């Protein structure tokens, strides 16, 4: 009922955000440059780490390099601006308008993030050739792995948005959260497995990373792509993502209800 009533609003918010992406062309291109540099550096480091061997711990160098290239390439599309948006709106005192809409605030944020991501998608045309030059690209391990990857990528996007939203909602308490955000970026980035594949992590660390939601953003979809999901089965890898997507809906609901009670609109 509410979904049908709100759908046109969500689509319109998304469309506005697609257009915004192209107002900030410089940002879009800088993002690709940064991704290219990251992939290039990781390739050098991991080649050196392999020290001329073609296989370490049963994992071939080619598979590792393809993993790292894909992981960082897709991360370019999985950096939602949700928490930044929330902070900006709170700091400028504009959050009041967002809250006074007949459409729930979290759903407005998801619609924005969807618009951002869709707006970035055409950049595949630029980012894939860049990745091809600086890193290693290969087609998915199999046709079914490719299909599963698409599903897993979408789930990764959902989880990335949700996690970013939880972080952003904390601004309702702190008003300022640059430090918190930095910590999140550092831990979050590492724990996605985009810098070090989980299969190379020491057991204790890997267990920690596997119980955290971040691996769903990079490691889970990319390991499916290269045909090496952690548990060996694609469906159980997807199940982990579904679990987090559902759990985060509950977490967001819980945080949001409390955040709203804390609203202090700046100025006015």
């Amino acid at each position, binding site marked *: 009922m509410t979904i049908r009533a709100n759908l046109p*609003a969500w689509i319109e918010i998304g469309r506005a955000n697609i257009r*915004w992406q192209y107002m900030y062309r410089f940002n879009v291109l800088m993002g690709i440059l940064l991704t290219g540099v990251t992939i290039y550096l990781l390739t050098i480091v991991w080649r050196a780490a392999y020290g001329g061997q073609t296989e370490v711990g049963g994992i071939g160098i080619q598979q590792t390099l393809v993993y790292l290239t894909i992981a960082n390439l897709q991360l370019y599309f999985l950096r939602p601006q949700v928490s930044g948006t929330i902070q900006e709106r709170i700091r400028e005192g504009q959050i009041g*308008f967002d809250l*006074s809409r007949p459409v*729930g605030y979290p759903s407005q944020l998801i619609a924005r993030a969807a618009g951002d991501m869709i707006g970035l998608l055409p950049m595949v045309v630029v980012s894939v050739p860049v990745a091809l030059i600086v890193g290693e690209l290969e087609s998915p391990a199999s046709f079914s792995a490719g299909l599963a990857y698409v599903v897993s990528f979408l789930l990764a996007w959902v989880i990335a948005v949700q996690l970013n939203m939880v972080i952003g909602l904390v601004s309702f308490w702190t008003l300022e959260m640059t430090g918190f955000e930095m910590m999140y970026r550092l831990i979050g980035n590492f724990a996605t497995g985009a810098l070090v594949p989980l299969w190379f992590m020491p057991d204790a660390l890997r267990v920690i990373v596997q119980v955290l939601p971040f691996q769903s953003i990079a490691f889970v979809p990319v390991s499916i792509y290269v045909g090496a999901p952690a548990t060996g089965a694609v469906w159980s890898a997807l199940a982990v993502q579904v679990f987090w997507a559902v759990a985060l809906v509950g977490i967001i609901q819980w945080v949001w209800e409390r955040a709203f009670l804390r609203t202090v609109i700046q*100025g*006015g």
Partner: protein
Amino acid sequence: MPIIQVHHLVKEFRRPRRFGGRLGGLRTLFTQQYDTTLAVDDVSFSIDEGELIGYLGSNGAGKSTTIKMLSGILVPTGGEVRVGGLVPWEQREQNALQIGVVFGQRTQLWWDLPLEDSLRLIGKLYRVDAARYARAHERLVELLGLEPFLRTPVRQLSLGQRMRGDLAAAMLYEPRILYLDEPTVGLDIVAKERMRQFVEETNRERGTTIMLTTHDLADVERLCKRIIFIDKGRVLYDGSVTELKRRYAPWRMLEVTLAGETEDAVPPLGLPGAAIIEQGAAKLSIRFDPALIAVADLITVVIARHPVSDISIVEPDLEGVVREIVEAGEVRS
């Protein structure tokens, strides 16, 4: 049945105590001590459908805080509110559909989008169907003269244009209630007048209930029959503008310009309810109480005694009244 009912509304803000001096920042971070301020302190009133009321008070009196609670974006510390039968902060989304909000100091339009796109987005957000949208859009574009800058990004609009855009956005989905928070702040005379005309027409022709918060008493004198005056979060006065003026300034002033200059002191008038309170070179200011003496009688006496070149009657203005209330901290009965 009133459309807005506010009953013993209280809003208390709690902030961690700030410390100055060395390591003050660190103490602020870890302190368990809070400073509390009562922004709204036991406010009660009710507003009937179709009323246009002025909600007055000085800076920090609690006006905006009240409006925020009425629009459901701030949860009160205590008290009850019903807007069109809804509790605004609990049924936030239904409430949003029946209210429009304009804040003079901010804009609800999207900074980077052309005005037209902002309006379309508002239309979708408030579930306005295509036919209704077309009708409302056409009416507002004409009434507010938006045509010349519909395609301009909001950030490039002048303040007056932007405010017109904001009014259009707030009325696009034809809400029953409109909250205007200092809508004329910073506008020039022409823009102010245009704004007032729009507010007046919206109230008169559509029957929209309007709650107007302002510092500009000219807005109130022009638009509102009833005012609610708050100071330090408390209601000091709730009633008609005429009644307030009557209590504070029952007299009028008769300003007389004499035909020639005179150095001599003018003798007292000797009339009940009238007195000369100021004498200039060619000017007399006479204060009189219309309840005690008719204007015509007074003028007859003045003209008989002095050669007069001009004469005018000055009504007391609300500004003086408000200044007096704020200084006294209470309203005379």
